[in-house]
């Protein structure tokens, strides 16, 4: 019978086309809006995660205490073994070492004397290794303004504003002056490979980015790193999981009597992000609920309309002797099929558009000239596992409920009046 109904639906486009379209559009909108809200509300979280907190982060206990002062003298040591331990025992995330450091960038003139100098905030990341996702994570490729990303050791990226302030161009030689892990003054030459602009004032003022192995050499931090950041492999921050992983790590590997033993913290336990995470979850829930509810009403209505649309057909079927219960059941089966097909198609469309917005973002930088605070220049959607089924709630259930309600009318129709109705 299912086959028969399916054939009917496919062959008689008038039965299926509009309801299917409505369900598809409705479900697509639901999925899209959910992914969009999560992305829109969570943008600050993701930006913070990528540039600063990671989804999880391992540091020494002492470093964690004074994190905002980037105390590299308290950095993690023997990071290679720690890294392999993390990737073996905590495989849900990708782990990469980072070194944050402060310092000066000094630009020489032709005689090697200082021509210009400026304070810099540095970040050493796993940049050159082709298997590393760090460059992508920081969106370096797309943030590039001039030149290219470092492809060889000894190359450095400067923020565009900083490079203009110092008067340097890609290809120029600059010297980093900083302090080593032991507190001694450190000097290291770099070739400027290119410049980047993140659109975040706090980063664009004096950000420099280089490969971590250069920074390790420069700061005498062989096999050491200020922090090891972890990012969930599925790309999204999951607060509960991050907290669980941190607890699991700390229970085994962290010794609270040793200031230099490693400590894992989740994104939400760094700075003020915890409250923001909570707020985002709440807002997302609220707004999505309103949308799903509204969508359910619309699809319910669509179900009713679908039933009404076939008023005449039902009349004929009853007139030629089909049982009311049978008509009612087949209509519900059909609505199930349409609801399901629409939900599948809608979810696919919704995910597709959400993916586009996730990948390319809605650029609002034109409106954001001269931003003074840490704001993203693109609004991005964020697809979560829930988006794969969230559309089915209104798509399937509401459509079926609508049909069920509309179908009650079938039982009210009197066979005697059928022909009169059909005549009209």
């Amino acid at each position, binding site marked *: 019978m299912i086959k028969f109904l399916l054939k009917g639906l496919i062959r008689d486009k008038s039965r299926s086309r*509009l309801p299917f379209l409505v369900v598809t*559009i409705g479900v697509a*909108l639901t999925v899209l809006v959910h992914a969009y809200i999560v992305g829109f509300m969570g943008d600050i979280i993701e930006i913070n995660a990528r540039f600063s907190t990671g989804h999880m982060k391992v540091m020494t206990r002492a470093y964690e205490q004074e994190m905002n002062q980037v105390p590299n003298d308290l950095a993690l040591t023997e990071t290679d073994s720690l890294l392999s331990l993390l990737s073996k025992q905590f495989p849900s995330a990708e782990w990469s070492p980072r070194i944050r450091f402060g310092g000066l960038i000094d630009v020489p003139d032709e005689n090697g004397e200082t021509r210009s100098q400026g304070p810099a905030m540095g970040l050493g990341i796993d940049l050159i290794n082709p298997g590393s996702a760090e460059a992508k994570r920081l969106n370096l490729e797309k943030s590039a303004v001039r030149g290219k990303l470092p492809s060889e050791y000894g190359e450095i990226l400067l923020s565009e504003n900083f490079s203009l302030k110092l008067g340097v161009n890609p290809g120029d030689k600059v010297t980093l002056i900083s302090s080593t892990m032991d507190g001694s003054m450190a000097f290291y030459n770099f070739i400027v490979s290119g410049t980047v602009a993140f659109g975040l004032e*706090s980063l664009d003022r004096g950000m420099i980015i280089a490969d971590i192995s250069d920074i390790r050499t420069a700061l005498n931090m062989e096999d050491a790193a200020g922090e090891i950041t972890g990012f969930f492999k599925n790309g999204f921050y999951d607060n509960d999981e991050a907290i669980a992983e941190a607890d699991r790590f700390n229970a085994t590997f962290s010794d609270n009597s040793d200031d230099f033993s490693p400590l894992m913290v989740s994104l939400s336990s760094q700075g003020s992000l915890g*409250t*923001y995470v909570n707020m985002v979850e709440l807002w997302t829930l609220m707004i999505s609920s309103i949308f799903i509810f509204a969508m359910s009403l619309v699809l319910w*209505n669509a179900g009713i309309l679908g039933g009404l649309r076939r008023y005449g057909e039902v009349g004929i079927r009853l007139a030629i002797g089909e049982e009311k219960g049978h008509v009612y059941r087949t209509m519900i089966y059909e609505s199930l099929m349409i609801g399901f097909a629409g939900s599948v198609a809608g979810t696919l469309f919704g995910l597709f558009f959400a993916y586009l917005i996730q990948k390319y973002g809605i650029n609002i930088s034109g409106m954001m000239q001269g931003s*003074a605070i840490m704001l993203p220049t693109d*609004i991005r959607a964020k697809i979560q596992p829930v988006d794969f089924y969230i559309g089915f709630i209104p798509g399937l259930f509401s459509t079926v409920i609508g049909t069920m*309600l509309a179908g009650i009318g079938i039982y009210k129709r009197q066979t005697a009046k059928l022909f009169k109705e059909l005549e009209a």
Partner: protein
Amino acid sequence: MKIAIKLAYRNLIGAGLRTWLNVIVLSFSFVVIIWMRGIINGWNRQAKDDMTAWEIGGGQYWHEKYDPFDPFTLSESHAPVPEELIPIINRGEMEPYLISQGTLYPRGRMQTIIVKGINPKQDIFLLPSQKLDTLITDAIPAVTGSIMARNLNITRGDRMMLQWRDAGGTFDATDIVITEIFSANVPNVDQGQIYISLENLQKMMNLPGEATIITYRDGHSPGLTELDGWNHKTKQELTSSVDELIKVKSVGTSVMYVILLLLAMLGIFDTQVLSIFRRQKEIGTYIALGYTRRQVVGLFTVEGTMNAVLAAIVGAFYGIPFLALQAKTGWTMPMDTSDFGMAIAQTLYPAYSAGLVIMTVIVIMFTTMIVSYWPSRRIARMNPTEALRGKIQ
């Protein structure tokens, strides 16, 4: 027209549940859009009010070397308060403060901080500066914000050592006692800083009569745009970051309005298509009675648009009490926002303006009208005799 409205109304009410489902969804659009924009407006206002009350007053004069992003400039960014401002300061319409760097040693740890010296008797800022007048013989009274207090793990009454270098570079140190911990929604006045009395800081730094920033009371601009060695920062400049944040949030949420409207329109469109499909005889009759096709299209358009009118009424029915309640009690986030990275209060009070409501109503009405008109155009192509016979075209 009157008949058209009457007819449309009857038809809609007669359709029962179908109409009400559409109307409810559409009424959501009204309420949610007005509410969300109200929250954003309220946030905008509250953030600026908080900044005014805690940080920037009506505007500020910054020492020309002062750069809030570069603490190393602090050792040079101070100068004697300009002569012409002194009478205004004495009247209490302006307050100078001095900023310097220091190192705090709470519980044996070391923390580089910003020390701000402020007049304890000032009333331009909400800062509990009067607590800086607390009499302590062997230490300097200091106040700090709740974020700072939490980061340093200190409470009121705690004593710790503050070390600094005066203008000549000489090391100095003293104990401070935290006499008050305030909670502000403006992280800029809280994170990484403590407040002591201006007099104390000037003495400590060996900079009598000097200041880094001079703030005037909101609405009391001294009108001096040019002051030698000082940069005038208007309130508008100082709150531009709020404007930007609000702009992003507005753009971001308007996508949601569009989707919400699309949703509601989907229902109305579907209904309109069905109406025209099912009510051909009726359409034929209208034309037979002498209606022009345009008039019939108008009739159906009015009927569809009537959804928005009903939605406005239904929305008003539950929306006005809801929105009013929100404006009065605010929307309290069920969590502690005191350590937020931006100026955001625990409770946001949405602010609705007449313009906002009227704009929302116009936009929704207009959209509904277009969506109602769109399927009705088919009517104009109908053959009236066929329609009368109920033949599907």
